[in-house]
């Protein structure tokens, strides 16, 4: 990890500061890659296996869930295997796992459901050897859909857990 690429990521993070202004790591090096349209800003680094964009686009930063479920499909497990591998290789990064739900449900139940989903991912990554202290979970319930329509095509994409990568600050 070069100084240059870190700087780049930091800048990209500022550009992308979107959904949350949250300072979830207690420092300002947060990169929120959840925004679906944001990848363009990172173009050029998707080929670099050590870059968060590679993590987001090539490995896949998100897994999807069945209605009301928080257990991982085999497809999801495959994605998470890749995520775990990447995290084990790139130890300068940590991750926040965001759990989401579709809009079919009450606000509070969906918050709890999102927490379940995020936790499923966290547990899986930990089972693959990622240190638990590099992973945090948060649930957005139904507050942050990525697809806007009100039918199953959109709902299926909104029932997700997204692993958001951020650099660990060099102290």
């Amino acid at each position, binding site marked *: 990890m070069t100084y240059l690429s870190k700087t780049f990521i930091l800048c990209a993070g500022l550009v992308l500061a979107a959904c949350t*202004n949250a300072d979830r790591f207690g420092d300002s090096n947060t990169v929120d890659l959840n925004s679906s349209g944001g990848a363009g800003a990172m173009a050029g680094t998707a080929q670099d296996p050590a870059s968060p964009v590679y993590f987001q686009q090539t490995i896949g930063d998100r897994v999807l869930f069945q209605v009301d479920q928080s257990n991982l499909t085999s497809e999801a497990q495959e994605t998470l295997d890749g995520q775990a591998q990447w995290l084990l290789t790139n130890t300068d990064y940590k991750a926040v796992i965001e759990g989401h739900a579709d809009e079919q449900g009450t606000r509070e*139940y969906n918050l709890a459901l999102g927490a379940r989903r995020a936790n499923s991912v966290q547990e899986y990554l930990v089972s693959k050897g990622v240190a638990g202290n590099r992973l945090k979970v*948060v649930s957005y319930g139904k507050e942050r859909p990525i697809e806007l329509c009100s039918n199953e095509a959109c709902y299926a994409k909104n029932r997700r857990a997204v692993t958001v990568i951020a650099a660990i600050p060099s102290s």
Partner: protein
Amino acid sequence: MMRVLLSLVLACLVWAMPAFAQNGPLRIEITEGVIEPLPFAAPDFVSDNAAGAEMGRKIAEVVAADLAGTGLFREIQPDAFISRVTSFSSPVQYADWKAINAQALITGAVTVDSGGKLVVRFRLFDVFAGQELGDGLQLVGTQDGWRRIAHKVADQVYSRITGEAPYFDSRVVFVAESGPKDQRSKRLAIMDYDGANVSYLTDSASIVLAPRFSPDGKRVLYTSYESGFPRIYVMNVGSVQQRVLESQDGQMSFAPRFGPDGQAVVYSVSRGGNTDLYRMDIDSGASTRLTNAPSIETAPSFSPDGDQIVFESDRSGTPQLYIMPASGGEAQRISFGQGRYGTPVWSPRGDLIAFTKQSKGRFHIGVMRTDGSEERLLTASFLDEGPTWSPNGRVIMFTRETQGAQGSASLYSVDITGRNLRQVPTKTGASDPSWSPLQE
């Protein structure tokens, strides 16, 4: 022939005597009536100067809007009036008001005293009985508080006629929404129950959810993502001072609600994917865990006596409603209908629980008795949720969201009979209402 008649009379007499004895006044029993809005007239409150007259007109308007807004009353438009009320103290021309079928008449007068205070007097008449209902009343307040005075007048009228406790002089804290669905910004806001006098309590920097009034209406609990994770905050509505409630790192807390003493707070904590209910003393921050199950337990609400908590749990496989002692312990399931139940809220009267129900792809607001019986669905739409009770337990306000990419949220209210569904006017999108107690 005589014998037959005689024996008939004799046979019947013993049996008939009670009926006979009742035969003084004619007795009838009325068991069928009508349910319709009661027509009333609220002429402009009179005043001896132009400024006061303008105020008198506005006050009468708000009084009429409050009453008509309940669905229990119907305003008779002023152009139908035969009589003009020109003086507060002159006798009421009952005949003129009867002729237009005004069953209740509200008259009032507005003056500004030497200290600049607004002085409002009013009387309420039962037109057909030809008499005053209750005594005249005088209210004094600041001039820019005229709406509150109008609400208080309407509260008096409403209570004197219906017998219900009043509720117009109350406020609603809610989440003001703007922006598209995927980047919706949310701010805490507060307004009068009728949508007037909106002011904002937070900016839109962080997502805020589900504010809940304290029993005295002075504080609000809400959930904010200010820290990056959902946490519970308490805000003093007057000073807008806020603080986060105690919570441990790595856990999310949400769905807070005050107990009736204003001291206990019950809420959900998610940790390790599991969501359970906790209870905290808001001043000391000491908390105890109320449930300990691998299922989701959330959306708790105290009974008005503080002895019990109704909440939502999916321990049976789908979200259903349960009641447990306020200190935790065994819970009884109370919802058994088809579908999923959530966000139960105990009515201030204690007899009903309002809830959100999801069934066959639609959402409903409903009420049931506290043992789960007599379930009745009051609304139906693509997405209704989050009921809150008016201070008198007669009206429910809730969030209704429309579907699709352009979907937006707004507030609606409905009488607990299921009548009078109407939108609460707000300038922006609005969700998660919480109704204050009646203001003092």
